[in-house]
């Protein structure tokens, strides 16, 4: 089974972020780039699936982003992915989710897959729209929030997490899945993995390789970011002065009860 996992290269989630007011884009200078944390969970699910299915199964990671960040993909290779493909083209800058998914879908068609795993959300953009848009562009079924994946012949039996429990669905391959965080913490890249990752291929595709000239980047986008603003500053909290612990707890309880929170 050929499994492809999309990974986004995002600024370190723990770093403080700034938005450049003129470009309206995140300032990346001076901030370390990492694999989008949700995508690491999807990669973990893919690696587990590969181990279970065995045979000549492979895991390929696919990203779209600036070529300068290419080496960030080594981490995915060190964790156990077999190969990486990067779609990189200056014309892709400023793509909105539609244009991003459009270009990615073309790249993914070229790479080919039986199963496409997508993290549910990115840490920087947080739109959560790309998985759906990808499935649409690819003309494939999308199953979101998969928490358990059983492999049948030419199909998958999936448990998908819902607010109230889980649903059992079957889907034919190829298909697109987003994963829940139930496959366990993403594994550490072992030293052998790190040393071996050097030798694994990272292929770089440009738009010309996909026959996608127009409809890319800002030009191919359907939305435009008009303005942005930081969230409003939080109001002052209410400080309770109490003589002792018990009366303090009581005051807090009354506060919560007044707001119908308990």
């Amino acid at each position, binding site marked *: 089974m050929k499994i492809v996992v999309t990974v986004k290269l995002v600024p370190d989630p723990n770093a403080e972020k700034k938005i450049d007011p003129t470009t309206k884009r995140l300032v990346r200078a001076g901030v370390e780039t990492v694999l989008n944390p949700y995508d690491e969970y999807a990669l973990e699910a893919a690696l587990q699936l590969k181990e279970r299915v065995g045979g000549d199964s492979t895991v390929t990671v696919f990203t779209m982003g600036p070529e300068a960040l290419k080496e960030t993909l080594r981490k995915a290779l060190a964790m156990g992915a077999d190969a990486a493909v990067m779609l990189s083209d200056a014309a892709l800058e400023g793509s909105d989710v539609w244009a991003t998914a459009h270009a990615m879908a073309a790249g993914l068609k070229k790479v080919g897959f039986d199963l496409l795993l997508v993290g549910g959300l990115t840490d920087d953009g947080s739109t959560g729209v790309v998985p759906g848009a990808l499935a649409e562009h690819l003309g494939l079924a999308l199953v979101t929030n998969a928490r358990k994946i059983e492999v049948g012949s030419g199909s998958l039996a999936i448990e998908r997490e819902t607010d109230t429990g889980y649903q059992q669905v079957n889907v034919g391959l190829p298909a697109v899945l987003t994963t829940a965080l139930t496959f366990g913490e993403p594994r550490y890249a*072992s030293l052998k993995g790190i040393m071996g990752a050097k030798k694994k291929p990272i292929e770089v595709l440009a738009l010309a390789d996909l026959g996608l000239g127009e409809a890319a980047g800002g030009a191919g986008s359907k939305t435009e970011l008009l303005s942005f603003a930081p969230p409003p500053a939080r109001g002052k909290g209410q400080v309770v002065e109490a003589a002792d612990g018990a009366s303090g707890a009581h005051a807090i309880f009354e506060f919560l009860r007044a707001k119908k929170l308990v």
Partner: protein
Amino acid sequence: MNFDLTDEQKAIQGLARDFAQNEVKPRAEVMDREEAFPYDLVAKMAELGFMGLPFPEEFGGAGADTVSYALAVMEIARADASTAITMAAHVSLGASPFYRFGTQEQKERYLVPLAQGKQLWGFGLTEPNAGSDAGNCQTKAVLRDGTWIVNGTKAFITNSGTDISGGTTITAVTGTRPDGKPEISNLIVPQATPGFTRSKKYKKMGWRASDTRELAFVDARVPEANLLGKRGEGYSQFLQILDGGRISVAALSVGLAMGAYDEALAYAKERHAFGRPISKFQAIAFKLVDMLCEIEHAKLMTLRAAWEKDAGREFEQTASLAKLYAAEVSHRVVNEALQIHGGYGFMDEYPISRMYRDQKINEIGEGTNEVQRLVLARMMGL
């Protein structure tokens, strides 16, 4: 000149940091209190490849370089010195004699399971009456009908008595040289050797979760083939191992200092006195500046020694300078870091109190500060 780490070195440092901060650090306090050897952490370090980090893949290692090794030791020591010494002593003292001096067969038999981290191995140089003057070895081995009969005692041997320890390589007097001085050789002594016993763990003030024991040899019977390297080369072989070991201890010292600095910095920002964070007092801020300055200095020296070793150059003097300096830096840094904690630093539940206890051995193990100065003075032709 280029101070950038390679992508691979950065990746290994990142792995060691994630592992140490997520898996080791949260456990350090309890392990220290209960003197509990962390078998599960050793198993995880083995799985990740740390226990054979610098050895070639053909011998079960990860094939990484000495710079990566030093960076990994620093990150683990930053979280917990006991776990770090267990890993570092295993690699640089336990396993590397086989790599440096073993025959192909000895490498396959002993080095492979060690590099894979399936077994630990001890380095038996120190004796109750031979520490700094380790050449004054009293342990004797006599070859009789193809068997070495070993008698003597070794003191303070790390990793020698865990449930997964495979044995210890020792120095023993095997005869008299033509110049009348004792002939010292290295013997491989597996755990199951008849006549070889280990004491209970020593009660220690620091490195409490590491395994340190006294070894006794009473007519212990070791096969003749268990000679490591050439007969009569044992002392110089072990000194060569200690040359590399200095990079290891320097890295342990830098790591511990980094950990103490982390604690002090966080505490100084959150602890308030006279209505503001204590980090706003110049007296405290300057301490933190001085700490960082010294740590950076010691780190550069340590990495330079590692880099020289990787480049196949002479590294002995730099390694010795780094070991001495880093050990003393770790002393000053933990001391000031505890000072910044005030009375809380004196309490067991603050990690800095453990670090303070763990620090002292950096100035003693693998050559005391005094011996380091002695060695350096000699290298400088004094």
